[in-house]
């Protein structure tokens, strides 16, 4: 079923919407969640929470690309679960690895001013990403938005893992410089 037809079902408050979403996107959503949580039980809960969030948000939203819309939801839901549970148990997920990798870019400190600057950071990050080459941008988003493993990201971008690793390192260094220039404390 096409995305617009599924979205229409949500707007009609037809429960088939959730069943169709499940059929089309369960694998996709599970993969994103698993990259973050590395725990199948938690993933399943997050996927179900995403269906609920989709049901509650349509209407009013009418997304054009359902995968992107749902993917954004499950990413945040899973990160929230990760944070809630990570104090109880250390997790070896791609999200945890991404956090470690990005320590190259940041110092780890937090200040109230920085917390207020979250919106500006989003804008700066978008500008930075648009300034990257297509290949670099896809690599960065594959790794740090979808939390795909380095191997998998290199795989679907058609490059060697070694190249992906060194390219990511260079991008992180450039991001660090960029953020400093933009006035962010590293």
């Amino acid at each position, binding site marked *: 079923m096409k995305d617009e037809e599924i979205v229409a079902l949500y707007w009609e408050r037809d429960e088939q919407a959730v069943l169709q979403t499940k*059929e089309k996107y*369960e*694998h*996709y959503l*599970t*993969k994103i969640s*698993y990259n973050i949580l590395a725990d*199948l039980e938690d993933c399943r809960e997050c996927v179900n929470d995403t269906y609920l969030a989709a049901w509650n948000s349509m209407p009013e939203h009418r997304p*054009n*690309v359902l*995968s*992107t819309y749902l993917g*954004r939801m499950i990413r945040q839901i899973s*990160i929230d679960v990760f*944070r809630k549970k990570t104090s109880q148990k250390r997790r070896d997920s791609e999200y945890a690895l*991404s*956090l*470690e*990798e*990005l*320590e190259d*870019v*940041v110092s*780890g400190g*937090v200040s109230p001013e*920085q917390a207020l600057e*979250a919106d500006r*950071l*989003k804008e700066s*990050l*978008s500008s930075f*990403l*648009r300034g990257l080459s*297509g*290949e670099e941008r*896809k690599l960065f*988003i*594959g790794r*740090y*938005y*979808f939390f*795909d*493993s380095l*191997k*998998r990201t*290199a*795989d*679907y*971008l*058609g*490059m*060697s*893992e070694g190249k992906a690793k*060194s390219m990511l390192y*260079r991008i992180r*260094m*450039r*991001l660090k*410089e960029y*953020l400093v220039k933009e006035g962010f404390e590293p």
Partner: protein
Amino acid sequence: MRSEEILDALGSIDDDLIEQVNGLRESKKKRGRRWILQTAVAVAACFCLVVVGGKVWDSFRLGGNPGNLGTANGAGDGETYDCYTGPVFPLSTLEECPGLSAERNIDFDFSPYKTKVENIDGEKWEQYDSKSIITDEYQVKNSSPEEKTVTFLYPVAGSLDNEPEENPVVRIDGKEAETELHIGPCPAEISGAGEDLEELNSWKEYKALVESGYQRMAFDAFPVLDKRVIVYELSQMHGEESEEAPAPALNLEFRTDFKHTQLFSYNFNGEENDYDSGKCSRGIFISQDESGKDEKAYLIVLGEDIKEPVLQGYTDMGFEKKMEQAGGTLKRYECSLDEIFSNIVKEDLAKEKGWKNSDFSDIPIETFISLAAEQLDGEIGIFRKNADGEYYNGSLEELFMNVYSCSRIMYLTFDVKLPGEGSVTITASMRREASTDNAGSIEQRNAYDMVTRLGSVLDFTEQSASVTNAEYIEITKQNFGFAPEKGITKVTLDLKKEHYFMEVQKKLQR
């Protein structure tokens, strides 16, 4: 600032940025430069030795029955896999031999799936190897009264980086045969092969390859790269790391006309190409290790020479802050492409010892150079673009990696004396890696497959297949007809059917 803030901010990036990657992630076809597509296949193959779980008590959490997970995208049609190792091909003869007929039995032994418990850092880990030991056995009969000496060939889908145990051992009446190896070209380099053959994800793509006359190409002479080139050789790089210069680097900056020049490079870490203005650069980190002092980097110019080459030191690869103390020796000379290429291949092989792990890498270095030349020959051409419509950078390391890891068909040939009205038994034994979808994830599918007659000129009178040590696996999908739980471990194959497959999962052992 903390890492989480960056990852949170990334969660709000524009849809179009996400969708560009979404398409790639969900596509079965991998993208990228022509010459690195097969590298990706080989990288994916690395997943195939599966380490399952952690401590014994939860060790099979990932390997358990996935239920209905993974079915949304994984059609399970037995045809297409992300990481496809290729089918087991049937025995053939180099030329058609009337009077010869053969019976075949192929056995899939799943003993590598048996759980092994290893003690790592005081913790127990359960492991298994997702390989099957395959014994492909033929009774070849000669119906004519005369003795015949026939050259047989056994095709193997694989790459130069196959594990030695993956390469078949051929026996004639139980005695190991001397074989000769003929390596087919990387499919992507076959003229007119089309995009579908750049990456082999299904047996049908192998079929198309075989039907394109691939076998003949494996026996063809290699190309000669006699074109003249200009080489810029960078050596004696120096520049010390300091607080002001955290990662000293050199940048070779120049201009070129891409309409008349093709560039290849080796050992540089980064490049910039402005295809409109012709402004280019090649950057390299200055090694701080003693072992890196002899390091060299090469820029090979095919066509018109580059203009205004300048070597500049920088404090890091951002190439913004110049570093006057950093430098190197830039030597320019002319030679044939073949000559510089051979030197670089030898340098690369000396650096990358990995290739020597393979039996097939027993091939002489000259053969490897020829295979790489064959690959390079296919890349020569001004204005070549990759699948994204971007120009490629001419990186020779990537080309070597592809030569080493691209999926192709290799042919083992051997001579057999067949007595008049007599028969011989020919067996090919190997450990075969599973083809996989979603490798390394919870939805992994492990598959093994074979083709009955594809590419063979032998007259097969009967074929059968069997499974042994099936207690270690669960067959989740197949078209063979095995039912080990009911004692059906051997089946007769329909010769009209071209392809047989089975998907298996490790069976839980408690």
